[in-house]
């Protein structure tokens, strides 16, 4: 039964990675940039809920809504201030700017909330589920993480494929100039993408901190990197790919930690990524792009 326990924990962690990876995939697909600051938006989301709930004493739902709004606005602001001036610059310059934004957010959080880790109170209020006479217990956080990620994946797929704004996003990711000629406002579409991605990061932050309740200014960094690995793993730019990648990464991490070595779990996650990319260089569900001379 221990195996089932680990597997469920893995799927739960993986669902959180999947939500983060969705944000990465969306932004990468449309802005063609590695948004290194994405992980830190998770941390901002965590702190926003924490402040609203503990310091200001707001109710859980209002606090969650507050965090999503804060992160969405933050994402739009970051895009406008830091990334928009670099739309035509080399991808390396954009990458360094994203790293700068990441440093900025981490150190701002350090200044405001100091180094001491905050103990996060779970925002999830779902009862435990007992299976096999209590041999396997599914925590409320686990149920919430899985449900939320499934809802988000389905919702996002519907949004992208069936609404006008969503199809505009697809068009911009396909060919920015052609989309502009077709009358799509590229700037507002990119802003919308950052808004959605950052809102998802806030949700991921709450889920992550509910399951792993220590909150510091670097809480988001490693999950951010792993979620990016998940996005690449599943094929960057693909929504179902991000989901599959996220869950696989989560399961590998938890099973590796339990059965092989706690220190080497992260190494295993990265090793699997390398293996996948060696066999299929665009990830599991990635599209093959032919290079033109």
């Amino acid at each position, binding site marked *: 039964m221990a195996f089932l326990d680990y597997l469920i924990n893995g799927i739960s962690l993986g669902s959180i990675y999947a939500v983060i990876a969705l944000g990465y995939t969306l932004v*990468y697909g449309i802005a063609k940039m*590695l948004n*290194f600051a994405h992980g830190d938006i998770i941390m901002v989301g965590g702190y926003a809920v924490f402040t609203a709930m503990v310091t200001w004493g707001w109710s859980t739902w209002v606090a969650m809504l507050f965090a999503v709004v804060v992160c969405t606005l933050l994402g739009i602001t970051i895009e406008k201030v*830091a990334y928009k*001036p*670099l739309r*035509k*610059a*080399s*991808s*390396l*310059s954009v*990458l*360094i*700017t994203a*790293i*700068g*934004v990441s*440093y*900025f957010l*981490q*150190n*701002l959080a*350090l*200044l405001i909330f100091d180094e001491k880790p905050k103990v996060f109170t779970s925002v999830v209020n779902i009862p435990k589920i007992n299976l096999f006479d209590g041999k396997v217990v599914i925590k409320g956080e686990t149920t919430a993480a899985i449900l939320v990620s499934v809802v988000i994946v389905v919702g996002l797929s519907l949004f992208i494929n069936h609404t006008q704004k969503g199809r505009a996003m697809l068009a911009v990711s396909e060919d920015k100039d052609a989309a502009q000629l077709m009358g799509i406002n590229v700037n507002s579409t990119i802003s919308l993408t950052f808004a959605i991605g950052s809102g998802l990061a806030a949700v991921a932050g709450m889920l992550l901190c509910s399951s792993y309740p220590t909150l510091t200014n670097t809480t988001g960094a490693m999950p951010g*990197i792993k979620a*990016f*690995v998940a996005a*690449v793993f599943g094929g*960057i730019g693909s929504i179902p790919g991000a989901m599959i990648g996220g869950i696989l990464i989560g399961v590998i991490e938890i099973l590796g930690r339990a059965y092989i*070595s706690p*220190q*080497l779990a*992260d*190494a295993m996650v*990265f*090793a699997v*990524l*390398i293996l996948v*990319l*060696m066999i299929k*260089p*665009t990830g599991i569900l990635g599209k093959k792009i032919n*290079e033109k*001379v």
Partner: protein
Amino acid sequence: MKKKLNPQTRKSFITYGLLMIVFIAVEILLSTGSISSMMQGLLVPICVYSILAVSLNLTVGILGELSLGQAGFMCVGAYASAIFSNLVKESITQPMIRFTLAILVGGVVAALFGIIIGIPVLRLRGDYLAIVTLAFGEIIKNVFAALYIGYDSAGLHISLKSQGDLGLKPDGKMIINGALGISGTPNDSTFEIAFVILFISVIIIYNFVHSRTGRAVMSIRDNRIAAESVGLNITKYKLITFALTAFLAGVAGTLYSHNFYSLQASKFDYNLSILILVFVVLGGIGNIRGSIIAAAVLTLLPELLRSINNYRMLFYAVILIVMMICTSNETIRSFFIRNFEKLKGLIFKKKSDGAAVKEAE
């Protein structure tokens, strides 16, 4: 007739000259005791970061591929050389010979890792290569953090589990103690040695870039398909560059590990790789001199900003963002260039007016 140096040679000699001037200046300041002990502690790290930055510039600037695994190669070099130094500490007592050998060990082992990793990885390009090199760097860090090595009369013991798992005899000694890292490495790194190695690295890189191989590598960067069609072996040249980058990173790692009494693998995380990439990009991609300047300035900057203590890293981040926007946004850049030209015009005008202006002042 006077023979004129070609511009590339001139450029490299200017860099050598500048490096020598800086070295002499620092030596004079050191002998007069006008450098604070905190700054003195930064001298070796500045050289180390400079070597890392110039070597990464080979991959990023000359080969045109993004690598985020520099810290991993540095880690390999640091650990390999520290193990070597710890093993021969008693048998080779002459520090110069021991350290020279350690540097070679660190560099060669890192280069081997570079080749092993490079063969599969260099098939990928762009952001995929970046994430895979980052992944390799993290794997190296994690494996070294879980590594236990000790030695006794029966030889070397290696384990990935725990100290007890090694089964050392009572006379045994630990070299690497898992997450606690290496300890007892002889402190052989000095500013002079680090500087000489930086100097040699710069010479190697300039000569590499201007060699036949270097030109081939640059042609691959500029147009891979065209380079392939004229018969260049892409994989070979990519691997050579990657291995040289790894070699120099390993050498830098050796200097780094022999600068501290103890060293943990957790120091070599992806943030370090990113930091070095920041040096390369801010110094100018492909610009060797710029990499060294950026490495030195950005290593000193947090120390210089110490007076605004809590805000210094925030300030650093803002500087980074503003620098990138100012150097990469066309509108802002052309604004700066225009004004710079104007300023230049003003200064030269003043010069041509010559003594009259000076007299008036």
